[in-house]
C-alpha cells in the first residue's frame, strides 16, 4: 500500500477537495464468469481510498459471511449489490460505480459475464469510452472474450484494456502473458479495435492494479490505473455536423417559442443556418436560451433551448441540423442485438425509438445472423435472445438518422414490443436503403406500390361469396384477426354492416343489389390503393356482379373465395332466422330460396363449408396468401 500512495502522491482528502475540472472516463468491465471483474473494480475502489470506515466494516462483515476469499477481504462484495447475486456469488446486472483520482473521475459499468446476459454487457458498452476486458491467465482468450470484444467493436468502443488476471496461478509466466496478448491483439485487429493495452494483474492482491508488481519484474508497462488516468479517448464529436433532436417545444406565452433539447453532435452558434428535418425547412438560429442567460454557442452534450428566426414548424422528433445532411429515410439497414426471450418476428410491428422519435417499424428482411464467436455470417430466419444480426427495417414514416459510426446518438435505436412494452432489441443504423436526400417526403408522389412497400405486403381484395349462413363473415373475421396478429394491415367490409351506413338507402331489388356491389367494390378499391389487404364478405350471388367487381382491380389483386356450404347446412344453421322467414314468405328475392345463386366458375379458393371448420378455412386462406406472396 505504501508503494501505491507514493505513486499517487495524494490522500483521500485531495481526491475529495479538488474541485478542478478533472475529466470523466466512462468504462465498462467485461469478461467471463469468475474472471474477477467485480474483484478488480472493488480493488480499484479500495486502492483509490474511496471506501469509508462504515463501508469497510460492512465489507469485513460481509466477507466473513458470504466471501469466497477466506479470511481476506472479498472485494467483489463491494460491487455485487443485489441480494440474489451475493448468495449466488455472481454479478447479474449492470452496476455503476463512481470514483476519482487526482487526474480523473471514473464511472464504471460492471457487467456480467454470463452468456444469457449479453444485453447487460451491450448496455454497459453503450455508455463506455473504454472497456476493461478480464481474461483468466489460465484460460486465455475464450469464446466469451470473443463475444464481448465483438459487442465492444459493434458498439464503437475503440479503447480496450486487457487485464490478464490471476497471473499468480500461472506462476507469473511472462510467455503465457505474451501469448494471450498476441491472441487478443490479433482478434482486435480483425474487429477494428484500434487501441489495445494488455496488462498482467492479480486483481485480488492488487498487482499492477494501482502500482507495479514486484512479482512480475519482466513487465514494464503501465498499471491499470496509470493507463486509465492517461488514455486519450476524445472522439471529436464537437467538430462533427450539428445535430439537435427536439425534445420539447417550450411555449410559455405567445411571444416565446423555443425548441428544447440536447446537442447530439457538433457545435451551434447564434446566427447559424439550420435545416429542420424531416421537413427540410430552412431557418437560422436567432437565440440560444438557458436559465443562466443567452449563449453565443452550444456544444455537443449541452442542454439548451434554441430559437429560430422564422416561424417554421418543428416538434418533438424533428431534428435541427447543419453541415452534412443526415439520412431521412423510411428504410434502413441495421445491426440488431436481440434481447427478448421471444424471438424476433419478421413482419411483426415494433416501436422504434431513436433520438426523440418513436415510429412504428417492421423488420422486413433478415439478411444474416452474425456468429459472435467467429464473426461469420450465418443464414437465419430470426434472432433469438442475445443473438446479433443484420436486418432491414421499414418504418411507418421517415426517420432522421446518421450511421452509428458517424454519430452514436443519431445512429442508435431500441425496439419496443407494443404489447408487452418490453425493450426487445438494440439497433445500430448502418445505412439508408432509399435516400430521398434533401427532398422532403411530402413532396414525393406516393402511389399504391409505395404504400404497399411501406406496409411490406401486397394489397388485394379477398372477396368471399356464398349463401347466407355459409360462414363468410365468421371466416373473414378469423382471417382478419390472423392477419392482424401477423402485423398485416387489413380492413374488413361486411355486406350486412355496410347496409347500416353507406348502403342504408338500398333495398333488395335487383337494381339495389347491383348498386350495393358497386359501392362495396369502389370502397374496396380505395382500401387496396391505401395498401390494405381488404376482406369483403358479401353474398354476391350473380357472376356478372362479381366479374364487374374483378374488373375494377389490377391483375392478381382480386381473390375470389367461394364459401361453398350446402343449402341444407345453411338453412339448418339459419343464424339470423332468415331462411325461416323466407320459407314463410315474409322475405322475397332471398338467395337460395326464391333467387338462384350462381356458383363461381373459376374461384381462386373454394372452401367446403360443410366439412371444414371456420378456423381451418381461415388457415387455408392465409396459406394461399403466403404461397402467392401476398404476405
Amino acid at each position, binding site marked *: 500500500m505504501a*508503494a501505491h500512495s507514493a*505513486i499517487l502522491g495524494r490522500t*483521500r*482528502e485531495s481526491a*475529495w477537495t479538488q474541485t478542478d*475540472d*478533472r475529466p*470523466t*472516463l466512462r468504462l465498462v468491465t467485461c469478461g467471463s464468469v469468475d474472471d474477477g471483474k467485480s474483484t478488480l473494480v472493488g480493488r480499484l475502489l479500495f486502492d483509490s481510498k474511496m471506501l*469509508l470506515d*462504515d463501508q469497510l466494516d460492512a465489507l469485513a462483515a460481509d466477507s466473513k459471511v458470504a466471501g469466497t476469499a477466506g479470511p481476506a477481504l472479498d472485494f467483489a462484495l463491494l*460491487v455485487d*449489490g*443485489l*441480494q440474489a447475486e451475493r448468495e449466488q456469488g455472481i454479478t447479474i*446486472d449492470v*452496476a*455503476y*460505480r*463512481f470514483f476519482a483520482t487526482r487526474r480523473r*473521475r471514473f*464511472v464504471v459499468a460492471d457487467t456480467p459475464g454470463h452468456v444469457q446476459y449479453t*444485453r447487460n454487457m*451491450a*448496455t454497459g458498452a453503450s*455508455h463506455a469510452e473504454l472497456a476493461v476486458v478480464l481474461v483468466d491467465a489460465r484460460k486465455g482468450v475464450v469464446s466469451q472474450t470473443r463475444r464481448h470484444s465483438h459487442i465492444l467493436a459493434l458498439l464503437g468502443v475503440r479503447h480496450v484494456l486487457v487485464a490478464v488476471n490471476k497471473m499468480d496461478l500461472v506462476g507469473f509466466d511472462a510467455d503465457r502473458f505474451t501469448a494471450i496478448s498476441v491472441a487478443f491483439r490479433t482478434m482486435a485487429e480483425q474487429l477494428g479495435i484500434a487501441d489495445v493495452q494488455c496488462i498482467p494483474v492479480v486483481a485480488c492482491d492488487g498487482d499492477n492494479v494501482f502500482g*507495479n508488481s514486484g512479482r512480475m519484474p519482466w513487465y*514494464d508497462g*503501465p498499471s491499470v490505473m*496509470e493507463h486509465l*488516468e*492517461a*488514455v*486519450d479517448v476524445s472522439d471529436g464529436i*464537437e467538430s462533427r455536423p450539428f445535430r439537435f433532436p427536439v*425534445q*420539447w417545444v*417550450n*411555449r*410559455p406565452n405567445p411571444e416565446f417559442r423555443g425548441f428544447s*433539447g440536447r446537442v447530439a453532435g457538433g*457545435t451551434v452558434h447564434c446566427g447559424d443556418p439550420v435545416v429542420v428535418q424531416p421537413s427540410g425547412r430552412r431557418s437560422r438560429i436567432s437565440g440560444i*436560451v*438557458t*436559465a443562466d442567460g443567452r449563449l453565443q454557442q452550444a456544444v455537443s*452534450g*449541452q*442542454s439548451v433551448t434554441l430559437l429560430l428566426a422564422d416561424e417554421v414548424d418543428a416538434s*418533438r422528433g424533428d431534428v435541427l441540423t447543419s453541415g452534412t445532411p443526415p439520412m431521412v429515410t423510411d428504410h434502413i439497414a441495421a445491426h440488431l442485438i436481440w434481447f427478448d426471450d421471444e424471438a424476433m418476428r419478421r413482419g411483426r410491428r415494433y*416501436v422504434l*425509438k*431513436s433520438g*426523440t422519435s418513436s415510429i412504428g417499424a417492421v423488420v422486413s428482411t433478415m439478411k444474416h445472423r452474425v456468429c459472435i464467436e467467429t464473426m461469420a455470417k450465418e443464414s437465419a430466419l430470426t434472432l433469438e435472445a442475445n443473438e446479433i444480426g443484420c436486418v432491414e427495417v421499414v418504418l411507418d414514416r421517415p426517420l432522421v438518422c446518421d450511421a452509428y459510426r458517424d454519430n*452514436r446518438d443519431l445512429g442508435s*435505436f*431500441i425496439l419496443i414490443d*407494443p404489447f408487452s*412494452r*418490453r*425493450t426487445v432489441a438494440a439497433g445500430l443504423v448502418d445505412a439508408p436503403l432509399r435516400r430521398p436526400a434533401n427532398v422532403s417526403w411530402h413532396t414525393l408522389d406516393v402511389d399504391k406500390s409505395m404504400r404497399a412497400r411501406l406496409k411490406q405486403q401486397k394489397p388485394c381484395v379477398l372477396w368471399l361469396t356464398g349463401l347466407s349462413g355459409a360462414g363468410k363473415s365468421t371466416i373473414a373475421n378469423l382471417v382478419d384477426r390472423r392477419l392482424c396478429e401477423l402485423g398485416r394491415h387489413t380492413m374488413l367490409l361486411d355486406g350486412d354492416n355496410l347496409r347500416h351506413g353507406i348502403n342504408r338507402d338500398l333495398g333488395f331489388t335487383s337494381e339495389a343489389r347491383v348498386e350495393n356491389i358497386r359501392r362495396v367494390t369502389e370502397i374496396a378499391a380505395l382500401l387496396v390503393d391505401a395498401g390494405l389487404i381488404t376482406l369483403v364478405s358479401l353474398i354476391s350471388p350473380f357472376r356478372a356482379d362479381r366479374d364487374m367487381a374483378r374488373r375494377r382491380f389490377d391483375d392478381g389483386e382480386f381473390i375470389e373465395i367461394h364459401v361453398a356450404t350446402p343449402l341444407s347446412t345453411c338453412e339448418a344453421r339459419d343464424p339470423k332466422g332468415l331462411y325461416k322467414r323466407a320459407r314463410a314468405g315474409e322475405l322475397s328475392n332471398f338467395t337460395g330460396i326464391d333467387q338462384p345463386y350462381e356458383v363461381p366458375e373459376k374461384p381462386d379458393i373454394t372452401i367446403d363449408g360443410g366439412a371444414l371448420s371456420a378456423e381451418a378455412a381461415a388457415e387455408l386462406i392465409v396459406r394461399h396468401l403466403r404461397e402467392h406472396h401476398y404476405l
Partner: protein
Amino acid sequence: MNGPSHSSAGGASAFRPAAARTHPSALSHLRRLEAESIAILREVAAEFRKPVMLYSIGKDSSVLLHLAMKAFHPAKPPFPLLHIDTTWKFREMIAFRDRRVRELGLELLVHVNPEGLSQEISPFVHGSALYTDVMKTQALRQALEMHGFDAAIGGARRDEEKSRAKERIFSHRSVTHRWDPKNQRPELWNLYNTLLVPGESMRVFPLSNWTELDVWDYIQLEAIPIVPLYFASLRPVVERDGALIMVDDDRMPLQPGETPQWRSIRFRTLGCYPLTGATPSTASDLAAIVREMAASRTSERQGRVIDRDSAASMERKKVEGYF
C-alpha cells in the same frame, strides 16, 4: 512519481503518465451532469401523461428542483411537486419547503397516510421498520394512485447505496409498485423506454450519475438554497444507540436519565428527526462542509437509522415500493 514504481524498472520509456486531455470546448464535469439531468427531466415531461416530482426537502431534492427550473426555463416545470409528509420531519424542513414553493410559485401536493395518522404511528412507539412502511412506502403508493401519476421523479443517486448502483434512470414499476431487480429494462445510450401498460408506473432518477460530492459542488457553484440543518449550529440532542438524535419537538419521549444537550451539530442527510443521526460539527458554510466531508471516514447514509436493519434492507424496501 517517486517510490518503487515501474519507472525504476527500466524500459518505462514506452509509458509516460500524462494528464488526460479534453477538447477545449468540451463541457465541464458538473455542466455535463447538469445537461444530462435536464435532458432526462424534459424526457419525462414529453413522454408521460401525468408526471410528478417527489420533493423530500433534502439537498438532493433542492438540486433536483433547481434543475427542473432550468430545464423548462422560461416556462415553469410542467408537473407539480409531491411531499410525502410523515408528520415527523424536522420543523425547519417544513418551513423551508413552504418558503421555497412560495418563492418559486410552484404547485405543491402534500400527502400524509390517513390510516397512519389515525393510528398515531410513531417511530418511537412502533419501531422504524413499521413506521417507514406505513408513513413512507404506503403513503407514497397512496398518493401516486390517488392522483393517477404515471411517472414520479426522485433524487436518488447510484453512489448512495449498492442496490441503487444497479437501478435504471427510468425504473419500471409493476401495477403493485414493485421493483423487479432481475427484470429491469436495458438502458442503452440516452434512449429510455417510457412505454407503460395501463396501471404500471415509472420512477425516474435524473441524479443517478451524480456523487455526493458533485451535489455539494453544484450547490456551491449555483448557490442553491438548502435547509439550514445542513449547517452546524447549537441544537438540543440526546445520544441513543450511538446516534445523536435532535429533540425537535415535545413528542420525543425522553428515557430516564436523558437530558437534551446543546451541541454544535449538523446533518449530512435529512429525513424524519427521530431516525436521522446528527454529526458533531462546526462546519457552518459550504466550504467548511466540503472540507469536513473530505476528512470524513463514514458514508452519508450512515446517519440513517432505517438503513441499518440489514445489508439488504434497502433492496427489500425498494422492491416493496419505497423510493
